[in-house]
Structures are given as C-alpha cells and as structure tokens.
C-alpha cells in the first residue's frame, strides 16, 4: 500500500570522510590547547572562540549532516544562535552602560553606617585585646550576635535553623573561612560573609571588642595578628592610626560627591 522508497535516497557519510573530519577535529583541539599557552591578552578569547566555532561547524555540516540535508534544518538551527545573540546583546546593552550612579560593588564605597566609623577611637591600640574591650565585647555579643551564633557562640542560635550555611561555631578551631586572627574576624564583621550581614554600622571599637570576645570563646590564643596582617587590614601597626581601621574607607560626604559629579 505504501511505496517502499522510504530512506534510500538519503545521503550516507562515507567512512573516509568521517575519518577526515575526525582527524581535523583532533588537530583543531591540539591547536586550541597550544594557542592557549601564549598570553595574547584579549585575543586569546577571540582565537579560542574562532577555533571552537570551526570545530562546531565541521561537526554540524558533516557529522550532523546539515551539508546534505534540506536547507530548512540549517535555517532552524541557525535561528537558535541568532536569538541567543539577541539575548546577549540586549542584556549587555544594559549591563555595560549602567554608568556610575549604579556602583556595582558596594565595598568600594563605605556602607551606610559610615557616620559611626568617623568617631575617634577611645583606645590607643583597639586591635590589641584588653579587659575593658572584652567586657564591652561580651555585652555587645549578647545584644547582637546571640540570635544566630547562640549564647555560647556554638553556632546554634535560634535563627540559625533557617540559615544555610549554618553560623560559625566559635568554640571550635576549624571551619573558619577568613581565619581566626583578630583582624580577620574584624574584616568579617565589617564586610559580612554569605548570609551574615555586614556590621559596618557598628563603630570600629565595638567591632574590635567583639573580635576579641569571640576569640576568648574557643582555643584561638595561638592565632596572633602579625604586623603584615594588620597592614592588610588597613591598620597602621605603629599605633598612630587610632581606631578608624578597615580597608581604605573614604568618608561618606566624599563618596557621595564622588558619585554625584560622575552621573
């Protein structure tokens, strides 16, 4: 009833052609890897994409048979790339031209608690622990940190249940992402980490107090701040810097002026 010429006139890829294409693909892979050794700057990306596209075209034309197929399948397949490019171009049309008012990375400009950071520190070297700081730290810890880190600092606070990843357990030595030195804890308090908010709105003295208090909760005595650590945290170890430590923070008025004349 139905005529029997179903698939005969369909093109069949000859074994030799298949081998040739296979060889070409291998060679091009070697070329890609070889070219990647040299640092041609942005050209690296262009060359890599070019070679990859040549390989992709070879696979499409011969292995997938677009060369011998109806043109409509080629049109269909190339439409997908056109719409992918539309997606990229118009999305980057926005991302690239956001201008200065939308400052991408907030850490460059001091967060909103800047006013507090201006206040002069009461201590000569706030980054060195002293009993008064410890007491102040304990009181602050009860007020601010208990919710997540728990009364004893074991990371089992009431709100910890809903957090992913779980709050840091201060009573144990491992698992600390930014390290257990006072300056490291101070940095975490300033910038925040994962789902922990930044406490930059607290004055530096409070943050140092908390850092020292947290270190008393577990076996962290051995981790001492070297001069180099302090410099990395933006503190002048010679003691002249006073309390306004933290990475290069610029006062808020300067920050806002900086932004306004750019927009």
């Amino acid at each position, binding site marked *: 009833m*139905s*005529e*029997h*010429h*179903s*698939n*005969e*006139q*369909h093109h*069949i*890829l*000859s*074994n030799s052609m*298949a081998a040739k*294409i*296979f060889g070409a*693909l*291998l060679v091009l*892979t070697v070329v*890609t*890897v070889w070219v*990647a050794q040299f640092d041609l700057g942005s050209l*690296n*990306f262009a060359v*890599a*994409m070019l*070679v*990859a596209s040549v*390989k*992709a075209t070879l*696979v*499409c034309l*011969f*292995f*997938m048979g677009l060369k011998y*197929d*109806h043109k*409509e*399948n080629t049109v*269909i*397949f190339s*439409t*997908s*790339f056109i*719409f*992918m490019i539309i*997606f*990229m171009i118009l*999305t*980057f049309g926005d*991302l*690239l031209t956001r201008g200065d008012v939308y400052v*991408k*990375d907030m850490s460059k400009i001091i967060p909103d608690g800047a006013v507090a950071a201006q206040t002069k520190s009461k201590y000569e070297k706030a980054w060195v622990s002293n009993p008064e700081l410890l007491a102040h730290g304990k009181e602050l810890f009860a007020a601010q940190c208990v919710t997540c880190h728990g009364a004893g600092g074991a990371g089992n606070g009431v709100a910890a249940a809903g957090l*992913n*990843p779980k709050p840091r357990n201060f009573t144990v030595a491992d*698992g600390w*992402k930014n390290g257990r030195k006072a300056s490291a804890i101070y940095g975490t308090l300033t910038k925040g980490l*994962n*789902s922990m908010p930044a406490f930059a709105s607290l004055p530096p003295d409070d943050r140092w107090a908390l850092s020292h208090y947290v270190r008393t909760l577990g076996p962290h005595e051995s981790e001492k701040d070297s001069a180099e650590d302090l410099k990395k945290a933006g503190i002048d170890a010679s003691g002249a810097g006073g309390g306004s430590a933290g990475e290069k923070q610029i006062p808020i008025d300067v920050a806002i002026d900086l932004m306004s004349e750019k927009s």
Partner: protein
Amino acid sequence: MAQGTGSVSHLDRHHAHHFKSGHEEFEACKQGMWIFLVTEVLFFSGMFVAYAVLRVFYPDMMHDVHHHKLLDWRMGALNTVVLITSSWTMARAVSSSQRGEQKNTVGFLWATLLLAGVFLVVKYFEYSHKIHEHILPGAQYAYEGLTTAKVPIFMSVYFVMTGIHGLHVVIGMGVIYYLIRRAKRNEFGPRYFTPVEMTGLYWHFVDLVWIYLFPLLYLVG
C-alpha cells in the same frame, strides 16, 4: 519518535498511519529533532550569558582562576578528545545502520557508550578533587588558596554548566544503550534507521556544547 511497538525487523517496517510515506515520516522526525536542538541551544544560552557576565565584568578574577589552575586543563583536554572520538564513533554507527551493517552498528554504538563512560569517569575525578579542596559553588566555596571576589560565582557557573552537560551525557548513554538492544534485534536497516540518526544528532550536539565549554572554562585566562 516513530512507532517502536515490539521488535519488528527493518525489512517489513511500516510507517505511522498519518504519514504519506516512510520518507516523509523520517523527514518529520529529523525536523522535530532539529527543533529540539534549538531548545537545547537556548537552554544552554542562559548559562553562556551568566558566563559572559563574569568574563566581561571580572577579567582579573578570570585571570586569577586560570593562573591559579583551579580547573585542570589537562583533564578538560582529555575529555574533549574523548567526546570528539565518541562523536566519530557515533557518526560511524549511523552510517553503518544506514548501510544495514548490523555488526558494525552495534560495535560502534558500544564504542560510543564506553567513551561516554570514560568522559563521566574523568568528570568524576575532577569533581571529587574539587569537593575535597572545598572549591565549591557560591556559598559553599571555602578554598583557602584563592579568595578573589566572585571566584565562588565562577565556580557556580562551572558546576552548573558542566553538571547540566554531564546530565545530558548520562541521558545520551541511556538512549544509546536502548539503541544497542534494538540494533541487536536487527531493527535498523537501509529502510529504517530513524532512531539511530536522531540519537546521532543529539550526541553530536552534546559534543558541540563541550567544544565550546572546554576553551571557555579551562583555557581562556
């Protein structure tokens, strides 16, 4: 795709009732497959846009990742060779089924399946190394060695892209194994090889995606 009701030798194979001829049915299946590949391209396009955002806005981070050898390009290169070879064996399997050489078809399909297995094994080693080193996506990233900003997000893009690509490889292996069982029952021949051709197209597409993934993730610093 076409009616696979029980094992029917390719000699007395009939096309579906609503098509005029077997050839028209084959052309319809192929066009359907190409449209499916269009949806796959656009599915991966989302990840390529996320990758492009990182490359355009954080080139120094990309340089650090490359410089710091977070991704072992040798493993990537090996996987590329493995996948290209599997693409070749798949192409040979398709042409053998078109010529009705049943033994070759089964042989090359097995080769493709094994190569896909090798790809996944190499992938397993890469992933287990990263999990061990805590080089994990986004919030889980806890690798001491490299702390430049946005590296965790690059790792997220890496894991999402290679993970979804790996998933496609696993699905491909399942379909190829199903083909092997049907090829053993001599169901494919010059007048009916649609499933093999369609799986071939899918497999070449999976290789195509890896051809782009490899340089973007592993090589370009």
